[in-house]
C-alpha cells in the first residue's frame, strides 16, 4: 500500500519519550523512504520523455557541463585567478558552489534553454544544412550598406562562432549570462565565501571585478537583441528559422511576442507545441508562415487546428495568463 499517506501523520505523532537515537534513525529512515519513493516517478518521467528530448541524456549532460564550467569560473575568480586557468578545487568546494548555483531556478532554466537551442541548431544543420553560425539572413546583414548594421552583424558573427565552440565543449562564460541571472549567480557565490577574512575579501574583490567588466550589450544575447531591434520592420524576415538561423530566430520570436528568450527556446521542444504555436501567432505571423516554421522544426507535426481563428492579441493574452498563473 502506498506510503505517502502516512508521512505527515507519523511526524505529528512522534512521542517525546522515544529514545533519541531511535528518533534520529527513524527520521533518517523516513527521509530515505521519501527519496526512495521519488525513484519511480523520476525514472518514469525520464523514460517516458526520452523522445521529446527535453530531459534527454544529451540535454542533462550539457546542462551539467555548463553548470560545472560556471562553478569552476566562480571558484577560480574567488581564488584570485583568471577565469580560464584550470585549477584543482576541493570536491567539497565544488559541491558547495554547485549547490549554490543550481539553487537558482532562473539560472538552471537559462542553461537548459541554451542546451535546447544548441540541440535545435545541430539538428537543423543536419536536416536542412543550416549553418550554425552564418545563416542567410546574417549574410545579408553583413552585406548591409549601413555601416552600423554591418559592424553589429560582424560582431554577432564572431560571438555566435564562440558560442558554438563553447557549446561543443559544454562551456558557458560568465560574461555571456543575462544581467539578472549573473546578479543572482554572484549572490549565490557570495554565500559560499566561507568566513575567513582573507577568503571573503578575495571573493568580494572577485565579485566587484566581474561586475565591473560585464557588458550585457556585448554578450551574444545582447548583440542578438540589438541586431533584431535594429531591423525594425524587417523583423518578419528574422521570424523564419530557415532564413535567420536558430539564434536570431529565437531572439526575434521573443522580442516580437514580448516573451523571455529562454521561454522561446523552450517552446521549440516537442513537448511545448502549444506554446510554440501561440508565440508564433502572438509575434504576428500568418498561418502559412507558422506552418513553415512548424515544418522546419517539427517536420512530422502539424499546426494545432483552429490557430488561424485566434488573433495575435488573444494569443499574447493566453501567454500572459500562462506566465502569471500558477505553475
Amino acid at each position, binding site marked *: *500500500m*502506498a*506510503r505517502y*499517506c*502516512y*508521512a505527515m*501523520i*507519523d511526524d*505529528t*505523532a512522534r*512521542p517525546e*519519550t522515544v529514545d533519541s537515537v531511535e528518533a534520529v534513525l*527513524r527520521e533518517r529512515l523516513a527521509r530515505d*523512504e521519501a527519496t526512495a519513493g521519488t525513484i519511480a516517478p523520476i525514472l518514469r518521467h525520464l523514460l517516458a520523455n526520452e523522445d521529446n528530448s527535453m530531459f534527454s541524456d544529451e540535454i542533462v549532460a550539457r546542462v551539467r557541463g555548463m553548470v560545472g564550467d560556471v562553478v569552476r569560473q566562480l571558484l577560480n575568480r574567488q581564488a584570485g585567478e583568471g577565469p580560464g586557468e584550470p585549477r584543482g578545487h576541493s570536491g567539497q568546494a565544488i559541491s558547495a558552489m554547485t549547490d549554490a548555483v543550481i539553487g537558482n531556478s532562473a539560472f538552471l532554466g537559462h542553461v537548459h534553454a541554451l542546451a535546447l537551442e544548441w540541440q535545435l541548431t545541430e539538428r537543423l544543420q543536419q536536416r536542412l544544412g543550416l549553418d550554425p553560425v552564418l545563416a542567410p539572413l546574417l549574410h545579408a546583414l553583413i552585406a548591409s550598406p*549601413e555601416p*552600423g548594421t554591418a559592424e553589429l552583424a560582424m560582431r554577432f558573427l564572431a560571438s555566435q562562432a564562440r558560442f558554438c565552440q563553447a557549446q561543443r565543449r559544454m562551456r558557458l562564460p560568465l560574461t555571456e549570462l543575462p*544581467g*539578472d541571472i*549573473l*546578479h543572482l549567480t554572484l549572490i549565490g557565490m557570495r554565500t559560499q565565501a566561507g568566513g575567513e577574512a582573507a577568503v571573503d575579501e578575495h571573493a568580494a574583490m572577485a565579485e*566587484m571585478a566581474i*561586475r*565591473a567588466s*560585464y*557588458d*550585457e*550589450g*556585448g554578450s551574444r544575447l*545582447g548583440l542578438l*537583441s*540589438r541586431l*533584431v*531591434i*535594429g531591423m*525594425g*520592420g524587417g523583423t518578419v524576415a528574422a521570424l523564419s528559422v530557415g532564413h535567420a538561423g536558430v539564434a536570431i530566430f529565437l531572439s526575434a520570436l521573443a*522580442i516580437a511576442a*514580448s516573451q523571455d528568450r529562454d521561454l522561446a527556446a523552450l517552446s521549440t521542444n516537442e513537448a511545448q507545441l502549444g506554446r510554440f504555436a501561440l508565440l508564433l501567432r502572438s509575434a504576428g505571423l500568418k498561418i502559412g508562415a507558422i506552418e513553415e516554421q512548424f515544418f522546419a522544426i517539427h517536420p512530422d507535426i502539424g499546426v494545432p487546428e483552429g490557430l488561424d481563428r485566434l488573433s495575435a492579441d488573444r494569443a499574447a493574452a493566453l501567454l500572459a495568463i500562462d506566465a502569471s498563473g500558477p505553475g
Partner: protein
Amino acid sequence: MMASNGTSVRAVSDADDRLIAAEEPLAGLQLRCGGDLPGTIAVPALLETVRKSRHYRLKLARTLTAQDGTHAVSAWVEVEPRRDGEPGCEIMLRNWRSAPLPEEDPTEVASLHGEIDRQLAELTAQLDGSQRLLTVEAEAPDLIALGKAMEGGIGRPWTEFVTVEGSSHQQPLHWRLLDGVSVIVPGSQRSWRATLLPQQTHEDEPDGFELLLAAKEPLPQRVAEPALPARKEQLAPFRNIGREIAPVLRLPIARIIANAETIRTRLAGPLAREYADYAADIAAAGQHLLGLVDDLADLEVVEAEDFSTSPELVDLAEVARQAAGILGVRASEKNIAIEIAPGEEGFSAFAEFRRVLQIMLNLIGNAIRYSPESSRITIALADEGDHVQAVVTDEGSGIAPEDRARIFEKFERLGRSGDGGSGLGLYISRRLARAMGGELAVDGADGKGASFILDLPAFSAAERPDEFTNGKSLPRLPRIADLRPAANDLPAAGETDQD
C-alpha cells in the same frame, strides 16, 4: 515611421532613478508618459532596466518598448552605473523607432468597456425591452435600500428609483441616451454611473438590457462589516467532518474504489498486468482514504465534549461472533483461524451495540493485520462479576512492554507505515470503551502475541451509572461502524483501516 537610426540619445539618472537630464526624443516620451524632467523615470521598461543596473552594478543592455498613447516606441537601451562615482546611471538609447499605434477596433473596445463595467458594477439588474425591471442584485451596503425598493418595484422602469442627473425629460429616454449617464442613488453619498448593455438585438431594438451601476469612487472601508456574518455561516460546517464532510467524501471515494476494482479485475476488457496492478494500488489507496475519513469522523465524535453512548443490553459473545464473521474473509485470505471459545453464552454487557462492534472489529482487524500467515486468533470471554470481558489474542510478534501505554495514543503507529493504518483505531476504541464505563488494555508476553482486553460493565450489575442516563444520546445517523462492512463488501484486495 520616425527613426533615428545611427544617432544615439543620452540621458542621466540619479540615485532615486529620477531622470535628471535627457535628450530628445526621450525627454518628450518621458513627459508624454506623465513624468517630469527632472523626475522619476516614467517609461516602465526603462525604469526597470535603470533600477536593475544601479542595484546590480552591472552594465545592462535591453530592448525598450513603450507607448505614449498614440505611438509605439522601441529602442535599444544601454544602462551603466555612472563612471564618475556619482550615484545613478548613464543611459544611452539607439535605434529609436516610433510608429503610430494601430487603430483600435471599436466593437472590441465596446466589449472591453462592457467587461470592465461588469467587473466594477455594484448593482446589476436585468431589464426588458422597455427598460422595466426584471431582476435586481445589489451588493454595496449603500445600495441595499435601492435594491429593496427595486425588488418591490419589479415591472416598473428603473429610472423611477434613481435620479438621472441633468435631465428633466420624461424617463426612460432611449437607452442610447441613458447609457453612461450619472445617476443619484437615494441613500448613497457616492455618485454613480449607469451602463446599459443591450441583449439579443433584433432589428435595432434590443429585447432587454443589463443595467449596471458603478460608483465613481469606492466605498470607505469600514462599511463593509454587514457582509461578515454570512461568511461565518459558510465556514462553520467545515469544522464538522463527521456530519458534513465524511458523507460527501465517502461516495466519490467509494466510486474510485469500485472503478479501480473494475479495472483491476479486467471486467471491462483485457489489460496489461502492470495496469491491473496500478488499479489495485488505486483501490487500496482508496480503501485507506475511506478508512481515514471514517476514523477522522470518529475522532471528532469521541473527542466532542458532549459525547456519550446509549447503553443497552448487549451480548458480548454475539458481538464477537458477528465481528469475526465480518472479518472472516479477510482472515481466510491469510489463512488465519478466528476461534471463539466454545459454549460461551450470556455475557451480557450494558453498552451500545454498534460501539462494541466497532471496538471488536478494530481489535480483530488489527490482529489479522499483524498476525503471521496460517496462525490463530482466539477470542475468550469472561464474566468478572460487575463487568464482562472479551480478550482478543493473536500469535503475532506482540507489543513490547514499553510500548503498551503508547499504542493507545492518537496517531501512534509504533514506527509502522504502509500497512493501511492511520494510528487512530486503538485511540478511538479506548475512548469508546471508557465512554461506556469500560476499559481497553493490552497484555501478553513480549514476542508471544498480543492480548487486547475489553472490559465492559455487566448488565446484571449495572447500576445505570449517572454518565449513562444523564448524557445526551447521539443522533442516530448512519455511522461509520455501520457502513464499514459495506465498504468491505466491495471486491477489494485492500484493507480498511482498523489498527
